């Protein structure tokens, strides 16, 4: 049973560019959350998708957007990249619309470097 997968593993972009990160949830999971983990920090919640809709959003600017597909996979898009967007981006999946009571499974992350 495959766990949460993310692609790509690493990515290097320059300031002002746009980037798309992808996440496939664990089999059977329908809720996907995205987190940003800066170096030396804990993960910070970006947003969460359930049934193809954004259910909750953290304190991130509109440059950060997302999408969930009918197969529950998800994309995170970041426009107009800034140096401060360099971080490890983590995807987490869970079952049901109350993932607090369901274990969130995390993927290995995508390391984004903005030059």
């Amino acid at each position, binding site marked *: 049973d495959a766990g949460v997968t993310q692609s790509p593993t690493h990515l290097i972009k320059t300031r002002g560019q746009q980037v798309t990160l992808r996440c496939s949830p664990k089999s059977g999971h329908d809720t996907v959350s995205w987190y940003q983990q800066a170096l030396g920090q804990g*993960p910070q919640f970006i947003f969460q998708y359930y049934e193809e809709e954004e259910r909750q959003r953290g304190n991130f600017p509109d440059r950060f957007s997302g999408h969930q597909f009918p197969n529950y996979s998800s994309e995170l898009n970041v426009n107009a990249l800034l140096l401060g967007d360099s971080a490890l981006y983590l995807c*987490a999946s869970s079952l049901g619309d*109350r993932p607090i009571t369901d274990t969130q499974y995390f993927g290995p992350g995508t390391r984004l470097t903005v030059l």
Partner: protein
Amino acid sequence: AQSVTQPDIHITVSEGASLELRCNYSYGATPYLFWYVQSPGQGLQLLLKYFSGDTLVQGIKGFEAEFKRSQSSFNLRKPSVHWSDAAEYFCAVGALKTGGGNKLTFGTGTQLKVEL
């Protein structure tokens, strides 16, 4: 808004020694509390979680944590540390949002080093 404080950035223990990692949370209602571990190049793995009931919860890899409401704490413990436990540990608090949706708020983590 909820928040989590992990006072210790780095901790070093000898293999076989006991371990306690501290976590303090701030949340207005009944908290949902978690401990995750992150090894280099890997994602976060859930060690244990507390929702309600018994305040002492058992997790994987021999870890346990105790919820103390009066101290707003959820400290992680292990009686005998193994070299493979070296990793970064994150405490998190979860909050339910009316109408659906929720999020985890993480602390800044504690880096554990194990001396052989």
